[in-house]
């Protein structure tokens, strides 16, 4: 078991980070090249000012009509996305690992806060799951892959929570936790989780077309 632990917490971390950053770079560059070749108008009409104007509205909770009309969803999705990025970076247990490996550290959140926020993420995932099952329009769009992706995102938090609280089998769960985190990182560039990478571009392009060309709002 120790070997497995060393493997997932050693070489696999590197692999996952390489896939994550390399993948992002690859996706961005290949898409940019493709756009240059086939969608030259994207470059022609992309406007920094109007692109950012639109992005800004959409990353502010209740900054758009859509966010205002669905307050529960808005609260959940914003909380979820913030926690998703926030927790892994500012978790004490992770910071110790950074410290041990590379001797770097920064501010961290208290364990209680981490617990609460993790529960929030897990609850959010349950919310998304229920939404997929219950709402007919969302259910209609949902495929197996959507559940898999949701599972990939939820897994590191569930297993992390389990491990921290040292529930039965927590050692194995710890390994699964690391592994699931690595899977998630690796999955981001190559699954629909890539919306993390492409959001600024799709939103920015629509914002540019609406703002710079059509003189209208897109929120």
């Amino acid at each position, binding site marked *: 078991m120790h070997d497995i632990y060393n493997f997932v917490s050693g070489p696999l971390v590197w692999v996952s980070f390489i896939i994550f950053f390399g993948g992002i770079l690859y996706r961005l560059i290949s898409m940019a090249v493709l756009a240059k070749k*086939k969608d030259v108008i*994207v470059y022609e009409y992309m406007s920094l000012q109007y692109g950012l104007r639109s992005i800004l509205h959409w990353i502010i909770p209740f900054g758009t009509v859509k966010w205002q009309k669905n307050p529960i969803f808005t609260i959940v999705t914003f909380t979820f996305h913030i926690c998703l990025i926030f927790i892994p970076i500012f978790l004490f247990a992770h910071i110790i690992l950074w410290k041990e490996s590379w001797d770097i550290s920064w501010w961290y959140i208290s364990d209680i806060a981490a617990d609460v926020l993790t529960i929030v993420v897990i609850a959010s995932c349950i919310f998304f799951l229920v939404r997929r099952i219950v709402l*007919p329009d969302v259910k209609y769009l949902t495929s197996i892959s959507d559940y898999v992706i949701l599972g990939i995102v939820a897994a590191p938090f569930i297993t992390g929570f389990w491990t921290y609280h040292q529930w039965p089998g927590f050692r194995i769960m710890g390994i699964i936790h690391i592994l699931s985190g690595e899977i998630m990182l690796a999955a981001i560039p190559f699954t629909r989780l890539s919306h993390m990478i492409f959001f600024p571009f*799709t939103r920015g392009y629509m914002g540019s077309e609406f703002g710079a060309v059509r003189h209208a709002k897109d929120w």
Partner: protein
Amino acid sequence: MAEPAIKNSEQIDKIVDEGIDTGIARLTPEKIEQVINKVLKTETGARLKTYVETCVHCGLCSEACHYYLSHDNDPKFSPAGKVKQTIWEILKKKGKVDPEFIRRISRIASTECNLCRRCAMYCPFGIDVAYLITIVRRICHMLGVTPLYQQDTAHSHSANLNQMWVKEDEYIDTLQWQEEEAQDEIPYLRIPVEKEGAEIFYSVIAPELKFRAQLIYQAAVILNVAGVDFTMPATPGWDNSDLCMFTGDNEMMGRLKKAHFETAMRLKVKRIVMGECGHAFRSVYDVGNRWLAWKMPPIPVIHAVEFYYELIKEGKIKIAKKYEGAVTFQDPCNISRGRGLHEMARYVVNATCEEFIEMHPNREHNYCCCAGGGVINAGPPYKMKRIKGNRIKAEQLFAAKARGAKVVIAPCHNCHGGIEDIIHHYGLDMELYFLGDIIYKIMEKPV
């Protein structure tokens, strides 16, 4: 027994459409696969790929769509639902789909989406579903499967460079006829034809020639009273409309826009002012011109709403007495979401009408009329589908009526056609006008 080719056969439209039916009968799976892959390979790229891969299937776009809302939240009518039934399936099967599938996607693309772009404002990623549906229409066009009436309009465009088979002499004759009619009211009035160097080329769409000649009359009165130096051409190129843009015949779309802009260049005008048409504005403003490599229209195109705004604001048109009935206003997609003219429109409405009652939602968020995007041009077979696909518009109008509105102003031909049918079908008993109708009624005219 084998399963039917399409499982949900009850969902398939029973509407008979020779354009689609005959087109389907000529297809083979091989041809379909070849055409689809050719379109995808040669005409799509990063946008399609990004849009498909970025969509997280969240359903947030659903409530943006008037079809979805009007069909009791039927998921098949949600924007992403329509993309699922078309683009996703095409990509998943790599073009290996059967003719019946093409029938279904032709129906969806041509008669269940108005390309109104409202959903782009409800998708957090700004995924352009109208663009995706346009790809579907393009594929259907390349396969020869387009609703008959739409295709016939595209043919008229190709043969006459206008959408209603108007011959060269009929167009000029109509202008002269309207000029004479209007001279009974304003003796000095002219519709100057081929006046090189005029400030403005006033351009219209063919239905104004065929069915709504009074709009040319009214425009002539407004332009003459305001002292505008304008002209109209005596050649094809006068029609600014473009249904080829909506059938997916991009090559013809480009040809039409070239003729229109080159007519303006030949007449040495500084601006093109167009009548109250939404789709035509889209075709000249940010679609057709792009196909021709003009980043923006080479000669600026001013929609009637903006032009009325200028005339009233600059005092060129004076209001004798404001229109007395309470009015509400339909924001056409192609000039609100498409050009941000909604505030100027409100300025004109407030300047010309005693009482203005807003519809809700409004401005960029207004619901489409369900006639635009070429849907009304799919013709009578789809009329009821179109009306039922916009029950939400009837409810929206009814709410405005409940607050006192008796008149709907819709500065767009498609909105007009769509809302007229909605008013009749749902028994709303409201009057429907163009903005030009109102201005003509209430403006100061020389005695």
